[in-house]
């Protein structure tokens, strides 16, 4: 027999290590930048301008043009290749934009506008609020649905809570990844990345539900076994499915990541990290939490197991 839920101390420790970067980043960013997350202009307002030049450009040199023109709060990255610059600055009107374009061309030669985005701060704030509402609403609805779907087992509410804790775990792990990438490559949480995170939520729960579903079935079948034993059994029984599904999802996600072009890279990479976390959390977070709750001990098995199984309806 395998002992998975019994070793939860280790699993929770691993989770903590994975989550910690996001928490540290939020604390640091909140203290130094005033925003706990690296929000893109989708939430803060501003302009993003992606320009392809006919020659390689230095981000610092491009930035200098903007600083000289009076836009001190400008960041520049090169994307895809050395000759494509992504410039983030304050929203400007059409005439001002044209002036900046001429300044750039004067210095770096011919250019081609690839994308341009400009958003007022008020709209950004609204979107940001709505995003939080969306996240919380999705989590709550999922919790309620699971509690309802598992009404035939004792303490169905716990299943909902465990699934939501697992999904919060996955969101935090995704944010850890995003935080690291923010420091390394300037990635930001934009509308598309938020979409990736919401997908991770859906997927994470999807995975958790498959194990819980087996648990729901096994609880009725093996009425004399402790929840820990049934939980281990359910994890093992669903393992082949988990591996099979994970491979197919990987095949697709990796294909998009490698071949899908630069626009989708951040979206897909965040999603991939979230998916991996989702696979981990359904086995090593959600299920152990259920058992820990039942045994009334977060880290160790203790003697006074509450044998709720026998009360199974």
């Amino acid at each position, binding site marked *: 027999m395998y002992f998975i839920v019994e070793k939860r101390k280790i699993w929770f420790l691993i989770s903590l290590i994975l989550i910690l970067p996001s928490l540290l980043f939020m604390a640091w960013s909140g203290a130094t930048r005033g925003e706990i997350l690296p929000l893109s202009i*989708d939430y803060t307002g501003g302009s993003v301008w992606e320009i392809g030049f006919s020659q390689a450009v230095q981000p610092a040199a491009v930035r200098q043009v903007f600083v000289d023109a009076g836009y001190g709060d400008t960041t520049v990255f090169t994307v895809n290749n050395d000759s494509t610059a992504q410039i983030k600055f304050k929203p400007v009107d*059409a005439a001002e*934009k*044209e002036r900046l374009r001429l300044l750039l061309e004067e210095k770096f030669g011919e250019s*081609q*506008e*690839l*994308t*341009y*985005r*400009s*958003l*007022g701060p008020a*709209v950004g704030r609204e*979107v940001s609020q*709505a995003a939080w*509402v*969306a996240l919380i609403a*999705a989590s709550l*609805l*999922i919790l309620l*649905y699971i509690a309802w*779907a598992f009404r035939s087992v004792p303490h169905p509410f716990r299943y909902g809570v465990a699934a939501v804790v697992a999904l919060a775990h996955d969101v935090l792990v995704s944010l850890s990844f995003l935080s690291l990438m923010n420091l390394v490559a300037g990635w930001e949480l934009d*509308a*598309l990345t*938020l*979409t990736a995170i*919401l*997908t991770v*939520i*859906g997927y994470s*729960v*999807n995975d958790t*539900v*498959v194990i819980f*579903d*087996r648990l*729901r*079935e096994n609880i009725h079948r093996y009425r004399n076994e402790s929840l820990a034993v049934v939980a281990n059994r359910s994890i093992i*029984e*669903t393992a*082949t*499915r988990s591996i*099979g*599904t994970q*491979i*197919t*999802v990987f*095949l*697709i*996600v990796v*294909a*998009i990541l*490698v*071949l*899908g*072009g630069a626009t*989708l890279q951040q979206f*897909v990479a965040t*999603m991939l990290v979230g998916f991996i976390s989702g696979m981990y959390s359904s086995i090593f977070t959600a299920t152990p939490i259920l058992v820990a709750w039942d045994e009334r001990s977060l880290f160790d098995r203790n003697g006074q197991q509450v044998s709720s199984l026998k009360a199974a309806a």
Partner: protein
Amino acid sequence: MRNAKISLALIVVLAALALYIVLPVPHPQWLVRSENAGQPTPLELKLGLDLQGGTQVMLEADLPEGRDLQTGAMETAKLIVERRVNSLGVSEAVVQNQGENRITAELPGVNNPDQAIETIRSTGQLEFVDPQGQALQQGMIINTTNKPSAVQDYLTSAGSDPLATPYGETLFETVMTGDVLRTAIARQDQFNMWEIGFELTGSGSEQFFNYTSANIGQQMAIVLDGVVLSAPTIQAAIRDQGVITGQFGEQEANSLAIQMRYGALPVPLKVMDVRSISATLGQDSVRSSLIAGLIGMGAVLLFMILMYRLPGLLADVALIFYVLLNLAIYKLVPVTLTLAGIAGFLLSVGMAVDANILIFERLREELRSGRSPRLAVEAGFSRAWPAIFDSNLTTLISCAVLYVFGNQFGASIVKGYALTLGLGVLLSMLTAYLATLTFMRILLGSRSQRSEAARAIVGY
């Protein structure tokens, strides 16, 4: 078994229909959507702005402090923005009201966003034009001394406004501009006929009187942004106030009055959000996501065969059926495909495969426990179903939340993604139920009841 055959027939018919819709062959009129006022567009996949390149603009009513938005003002503004967008010659542009005080315009193929936005926001100019004896009609585009290049502008923008007809090179004389008007309202006369009553400003009335008294019995064209709104005949000299009569409907009269009153936009608009993507980048995205999709799909199909053998092959057939259904629905609805939408679709493929895997794993278990193949198919499916249903439903919940979120803020990226993923999840449940189950029943139900055969087929 009979049920299985009926289902199989249904699948074949559905697949054939879907294939017919997906293939780029001529389709009958009733299938072809006609959004552009009667101009039929061929049945094709609709690409979002990020894939074909273009500009998306969000405009907001920019009212001075303390002034309230009049009811209907945004709807009127939308109509006017729409007309201007059409005059830019943008095909398949979408203009929508959003919330209480916003308008979004999606302009595919527009690669000079700044100019487009200026055109949309400009307070267009109303003119009274001397038709010089020509019979001008509503919807004609004419050159006037005030706007001598209206026809040229229209032609160079390769216009698609179906209501507009350019009137050649004649230059008409602008007699007065809209600032002579104090107000204009739509009202009904004693016979319940709709008419537009207007008043003139102090200085305007003199000009108006001079012109109308000299041209009684002649036409006078009312022109906005180069487009003839109306060309009434002058019945009498008009000094302070006048009436335009005609065969107006209520809406027509209202719209004319509003356009006369405000020149153009009933409310000033300011730009809140501009997003533009170059066509080259869009094409690159289409190409790379197509390659990614094909390779990803191919890898999944191959994996299923390697892992599950014959049932894997059947799952592949079911999967191709699933993809066809999706594409057909995209074309019929039509669903606007964005990059995120494609990602959502590919992800839903993953979920469709998951449903098959769940069923096969259960099937293997049932066979291992010694059930006959026929019973194992039924038991395996009914055991796998709750997991498929519950897990897909939670995904649908987050799709619904995303859709609402995206809809509220004109985040068409998010909306498109939620739509394709949600649609995919629904169809994947249908496919699992209809196709996979039917295939398994036919394959394992009709063969001999010996489990060795099943063993060989399923490979457990």
